[in-house]
């Protein structure tokens, strides 16, 4: 009854949780303190984001050079923290952008520069009902970590990185887009297709396991 009186339809969409906000205010507050010379805040900030930076570096610079690239990125963040402007975006996006630039520079120096993040193509249309997973098909809760990791490896690098940043490091679409230097729509497509592919890969793995 009430819904009919409203000029817009009531849509049952989950409210964005704090961790999915475009800007992570907690990290930004810490970054402000770090930028003003607070060593503890800086260290806490590095610890919080080191893994995400490591994952970005591992994907872009490669598994062999990833750790060194992450080290260089963290050092750059330490040196450049004063230039971080919390009003312009989130610290996570800034830090991941620093990491991406470090990796690209390292690749360029070694003559290995490559186009990593290809456009995934047009935003495809899907039938909503067919997207809904069956209760029997979703088996993430029971899958072994090793199998999940292997399934993740089957994704293209950029898609894999977007999935990891979103699901593991709780980055928002905007932060991932800023960090990888691609449009937000591209990130969303990667995430959508990444989930789909992972689901398929996990189902296949479960099927093999069960067989």
């Amino acid at each position, binding site marked *: 009854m009430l819904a009919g009186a409203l000029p817009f339809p009531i849509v049952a969409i989950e409210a964005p949780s704090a961790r999915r906000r475009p800007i992570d205010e907690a990290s930004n507050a810490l970054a402000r303190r770090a930028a003003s010379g607070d060593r503890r805040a800086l260290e806490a900030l590095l610890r919080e984001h080191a893994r995400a930076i490591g*994952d970005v570096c591992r994907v872009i610079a490669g598994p062999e050079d990833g*750790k060194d690239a992450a080290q260089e990125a963290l050092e750059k963040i330490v040196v450049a923290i004063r230039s971080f402007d919390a009003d312009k975006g989130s610290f996570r996006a800034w830090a991941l952008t620093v990491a991406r630039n470090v990796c690209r520079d390292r690749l360029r120096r070694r003559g290995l520069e490559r186009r990593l993040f290809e456009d995934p193509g047009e935003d495809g249309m899907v039938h909503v009902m067919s997207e809904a997973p069956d209760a029997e098909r979703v088996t993430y809760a029971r899958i072994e970590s090793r199998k999940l990791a292997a399934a993740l490896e089957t994704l293209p690098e950029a898609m894999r990185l977007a999935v990891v940043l979103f699901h593991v490091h709780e980055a928002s679409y905007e932060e991932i887009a800023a960090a990888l230097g691609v449009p937000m729509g591209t990130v*969303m497509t990667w*995430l959508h297709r990444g989930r789909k592919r992972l689901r398929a890969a996990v189902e296949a793995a479960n099927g093999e396991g069960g067989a």
Partner: protein
Amino acid sequence: MTSPKEDPAREVSERELLAAVDGRRDLVGDALRDALADDDDLGAALDALRDERDALSVALKRAQPELGGLDADDVSELVARAMAKADAPDEVRISPRGLGWGALAGGLAVVSSAVAWVALQGSPTAPLSQVSQSLRLLWSLGATLDRVVAMLPGAWTTVAAVAFVIGTGLLWGLKAIEHGKRIVLPAAGALLCVWTLGAAQAHAYDVEGPWPAPDPLVEVDVVAQPLPAALEAATRSCGLGLVYGLDDTRLVTLHAHGVPLREVLDAMLGPSAAVVRFTGHMLVIEPRASSVGATAEPAPANASPSAPVVTQPVAAAAPLATAPVPGVRLEDVLTFGGDAHVPAGRDVREVVTMGGDARVEGRAFGNVVTMGGDADVAGVVVGDVVTMGGDIRIRPSGVVHGQLQSMGGDVVREDGGASVSSGSFAFPGAIPPAAMAVPRHEDGEGAGFFALVVQTAEAGLRYALLFLGALLFAFFAPERFGRLHQAVRRAPLRSIAGGAVGMIAGSLLTLVLCITIIGLPVAFVLVVSAFVAACAGLATVAHLIGQALPLRALEDKPVLRLGAGILALFLVTRVPFFGWLAFLLALAIGLGAVLLTRFGRNDVAVDP
């Protein structure tokens, strides 16, 4: 009948669907909203997708060790190393290739700006002329200060004592800023020695009355002659007579050709407690009133009696420039906080105002100096006219034989109702009203624009040289450059404070050292050190500016950053008034960093 799965209305974009699942309401379109509002099954389907998303997140986090990412030990190690970087000097390393390209670009900038500057000046010797004018300005200011101080009780001894107290206080302040301890006591001891000795030696002989302008040139060769005879030969060569009343008859050898008389007197009289007076055709040298009876130096055994030596001027000598009536003792005009006025028909020596204007309608045989006021010349000024923070206005009847120097003000010449305005000029030599004009351009607007172009070319040359110097400094002493960089970044407030205190203390110390004869070598070293420190500080600030510029092309390119920063500094300092303030700020912060780090040797803690 169409099944729900095939219903075209249920077809939405991948991105919209993802946004709906992830709760990004702002990214969901109207079509999907409508569908969700109409269809409960669709809502249930989205809930299922959300559950799947959450399950995936949990599973991926659990599987993180298997994903090949950093483990806890890796994170600790990387963070520890990165934090060590926070304590290390900033890294500003210039490669040999960068140095080469930078030197080439800087060299081209130096050559082009120097050529432009010299061409605009209209004479290849113009730069040298400017240097000589600057030195003369310093001399004028020093001489004026000497006159002012002579009026104080205790003269330079009082000034030295006050300067010592102030200087020590400033150094203590610097110490408090820097958190260091080792500099203060030795520095204070050295200052005490220098100032005490300097005060005792300061201007042992004094000059009274106007001094001829231009200074007569001495042409003489005497070997092992008594001082009076040597002085007589020197003054005779300039067409002057001599009255000599000192006991000092030591033997001297003098070879002087084209040397100004004042320099000859400096060399020969040195520490003698004497008064030298120029009367128009005669030079009178007699014991200072306070020291009559107290001989500065014992006369040699073979000295002649101390009767005054009187010689007549050479009959054929040409009269010197504007001179007062012989025998008239001229007074100085000194005001604090008020205006100074020399009415028509009155002759004075120096005119000095602090916080007031000076108006000369009569004749001033010394310099006219104003601090914080304007100078208005409608009469004759034999010396220089110097204003600090004020304008110089020359009336149609005004004549200035010396230079015009306006620091922070304009030089305005009125010529029959029309006035010519310029920034800051020095006019060497006697300037009759008709000849006194802004160089090269006669019209007012053209003169102002031309002056601006000349100043810009000159400033361009200075900044190009700064770039080359900074390049060499950063290449050969990257760690020191990095520490300066770090000091400005970590402690900007203390750098500004340290720089300001350093500038005040340095200026004070240099002034005292310059005026005291014994301190001149120390003053020279101090000035050179301050110049180098200022250049290093400005280079540091310029690099930081370059680093802060939001240009991707400058990332990891210290030479380009340096160049861009110096260019930005150059452009900012071209802005009237604000530019000067910006330059002072940059100088203070850079100099402060140099002082706080002991020229890049020590690290500086973060500002509290």
